[in-house]
């Protein structure tokens, strides 16, 4: 089943086409990678999916229902959660409260306070932050803040998780742990769509990879196919 | 019927001229110096009161006052920016914080300037008669002082436009408006340019105040209404768009004139309704991006 579909998605910033006629799909249970040079339009695509920005034209469907035009909080409650390229945790709130916002407000059906608290704690445990629950979020290390963003997104009980450059700024050990977490999440039934620059992470975990360049989808396929794709290699190694 | 429409149009242009001036001034201060100067109207009030004071005390002709009040308000505006707002700009952690803080500081400034005026001149209403003769223009009679105000406003507006668009200083100002950081790297003395812009904004307000004093009553609390008109025109023309403010002023003047001919006391209300509609439909203004 196709959990996410995009049809001719286009976005302009002023006169510049950030995304042109991008058509794509994500199957339920997949881990799909999104790569491309800086400025290719990857985060823009995420912003259109999550409702942060409106599309110029084209439609995006989640579980066969059109989500273009909906507000971010509505899309979240339908089951799409995301993390951000520049970490956007609630810095002045304790770690637990960060996750609580997700479980209180972002779940498809509303929960009682007790259930929400439990969900939040479980999300923190999943990423390994339950011991830090009372610490103000701004006091966490970068790696832990990224974990917190994932926990917070998980607390909304998503079916699709958009991860924007999860690996950026992490060292080798942290990256390995992050990749493990991603596979663990997929095993729990969450579909993953991830933007990455770190090739090792992408090639190792993804079932499929999409490549964007100057706002257009230039290639799509398994990691092996992409690694051999001449256009992709040129784009990354060329001028 | 045609004469009636003509009356309305000319009357609208007459008020529009003054609106354009104050809007351009405000636009310079917000668009370039990034300060929402709530105290803008107080500089207009100063221009008006000083003109009256100089006329009654020394018999100085209002048109001559233009040359005195303008530089006076310019200097005050320049100094205020150099001291208060520059310090605020350098100590604010982000542009959004500066925007909020400078607006609040300007709010405080409004009370300071207004009350200084109240202490010196009291709260009473004043006016003077200058060129209050009828002039026959294309079949309708208009007050000479209003025509003079319109001509002066147009001249000042055009001169200003030319300065912004054609001179080196104007280029520096436009560069600073677009991208202060890069402009600074290109050799533009940002602190000085921003202070100059704020000063020019105050200059335009002071000049507008002189023109206002020729046609309307003068009192220490008159500033607020003009500040709000400036804000509405600037939003109408597009935030930071100086030519937009120039044209927007005339548009608003025309709207006011049309509404006045139907219901005189509704003109101000109509401005706010327009403002609300703009915010709902197109907050970036008619000419904004």
């Amino acid at each position, binding site marked *: 089943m196709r959990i996410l579909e995009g049809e001719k998605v286009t976005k302009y910033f002023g006169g510049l086409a950030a995304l042109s006629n991008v058509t794509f799909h994500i199957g339920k249970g997949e881990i799909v990678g999104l790569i491309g040079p800086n400025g290719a339009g990857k985060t823009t695509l995420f912003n259109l999916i999550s409702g942060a920005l409106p599309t110029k034209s084209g439609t995006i469907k989640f579980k066969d229902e059109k989500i273009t035009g909906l507000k*971010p909080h509505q899309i979240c409650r339908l089951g799409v959660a995301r993390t951000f390229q520049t970490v956007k945790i609630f810095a002045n709130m304790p770690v637990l409260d960060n996750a609580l916002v997700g479980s209180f407000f972002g779940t498809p059906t509303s929960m009682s306070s007790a259930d929400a608290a439990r969900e939040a704690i479980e999300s923190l445990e999943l990423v390994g932050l339950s011991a830090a629950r009372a610490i103000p979020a701004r006091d966490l290390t970068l790696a832990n803040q990224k974990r917190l963003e994932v926990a917070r997104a998980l607390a909304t009980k998503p079916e699709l998780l958009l991860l924007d450059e999860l690996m950026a700024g992490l060292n080798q050990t942290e990256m390995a742990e992050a990749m493990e977490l991603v596979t663990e999440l997929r095993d729990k039934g969450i579909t993953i769509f991830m933007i990455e620059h770190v090739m090792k992470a992408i090639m190792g975990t993804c079932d499929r990879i999409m490549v964007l360049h100057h706002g257009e989808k230039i290639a799509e396929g398994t990691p092996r196919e992409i690694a051999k794709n001449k256009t992709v290699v040129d784009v990354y190694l060329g001028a | 019927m045609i004469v009636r429409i003509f009356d309305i149009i000319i009357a609208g242009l007459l008020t529009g001229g003054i609106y354009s001036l104050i809007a351009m001034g405000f636009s310079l201060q917000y668009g370039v110096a990034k300060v929402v100067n709530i105290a803008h109207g107080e500089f207009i009030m100063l221009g008006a009161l000083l003109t009256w004071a100089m006329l009654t005390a020394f018999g100085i002709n209002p048109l001559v006052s233009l040359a005195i009040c303008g530089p006076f308000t310019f200097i005050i505006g320049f100094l205020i920016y150099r001291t208060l707002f520059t310090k605020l700009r350098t100590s604010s952690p982000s542009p959004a914080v500066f925007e909020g803080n400078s607006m609040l500081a300007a709010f405080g400034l409004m009370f300071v300037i207004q009350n200084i005026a109240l202490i010196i001149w009291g709260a009473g209403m004043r006016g003077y008669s200058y060129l209050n003769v009828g002039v026959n223009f294309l079949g309708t009679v208009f007050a000479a002082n209003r025509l003079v105000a319109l001509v002066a406003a147009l001249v000042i507006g055009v001169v200003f436009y030319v300065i912004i668009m054609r001179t080196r200083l104007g280029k520096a100002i436009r560069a600073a408006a677009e991208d202060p950081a890069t402009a600074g790297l290109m050799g533009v003395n940002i602190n000085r340019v921003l202070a100059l812009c704020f000063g020019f904004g105050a200059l335009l307000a002071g000049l507008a105040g002189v023109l206002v004093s020729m046609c309307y009553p003068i009192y220490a609390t008159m500033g607020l209404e003009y500040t709000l008109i400036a804000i509405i025109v600037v939003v109408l023309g597009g935030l930071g768009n100086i030519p937009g403010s120039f044209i927007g002023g005339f548009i608003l003047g025309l709207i006011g004139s049309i509404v006045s001919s139907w219901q005189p006391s509704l003109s101000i*209300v109509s401005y706010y309704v327009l403002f609300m509609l703009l915010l709902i439909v197109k907050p970036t203004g008619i000419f904004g991006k």
Partner: protein
Amino acid sequence: MDMTAFASKRFLVPGLVSLILLVLLATSPLYISSYNVILLAAILMYIVLTVSWAFFSGPTGYLSLATAAFFGVGLYTTAVLGKALPLLAVVAAGGLVSFVLAFIVGAITLRLRGIYFAIFTFGLVELIKHALLFWEITVTGTRGRFVVLVGNNTIYYVVLGILVLLLLTVYFVRRSKFGLAMQSIGDNEDAAAHMGVNVTLVKVITFAVSAFFIGAVGAIMATRWTYIDPYVAFNPLFSFLPVLMAIFGGLGQFYGPIIGAAIFAYLEELLLTKFPYYYMLIFGIVLVVVILYLPDGLIGLIQRARQRWQKGGLTGKHANT
């Protein structure tokens, strides 16, 4: 949410202090002069205005300059309905009309950037003033109204009641699910929206609730004036003073706005009749100075001073954090 803090000593002491203060305030008309009762009522009124303002503008970061508009609406509700309904109903009506007005204004403008909201609220005072003037000139033919008379003690108790209700509301909302939503918006609005918080709705409701209290206190204070017209009722000073008081007191803590309001309200009432223009001038200067040099307000200043004193007391050098 961590509820264990409630039982700790930190909660017990302020709780007891508040209770004692409340008892003192509730019984004060028995032992202070009538003039001082009204003075105290005015101070409590400013505390209501300031806390209401801070309740919305503090957590959300949206600067509201509409306090004078809601206050004026409350004043005018009493002017119009004062003789027709019992007092408490009029006060509630004043609050309700302000609530509805704030809801509409908020729904229109809180979707936009903060600066548009601030500018619009600033103009709201003038808009309503002129709209009412037009109404009075063309429709009713009257100019201003006479207000029903009410005893000083009654005024005092109603204001006190409104203040207590407000403080309880603020206290419990801050600790509720809604309060969590408010906090998340103030911390990172984008992220909050993406986590399912209906950001606009939360902002609008908060704005409307704060307006309710402002309108209610305006409705009761109307009885201090015997005659009200649009110029008297809609005065930008009432938008300015709560901002000054809250920022001076400091927005970080619960009681910052209360202390700021108490200080300036007392000064204002003291100087209002003797030096009207001078005191407004000084207040203006104070606001500018506070914005420049005291971003955390008086409370922030005291806290930082205390921290430095504590650190100095322990080792004389910077402690390692």
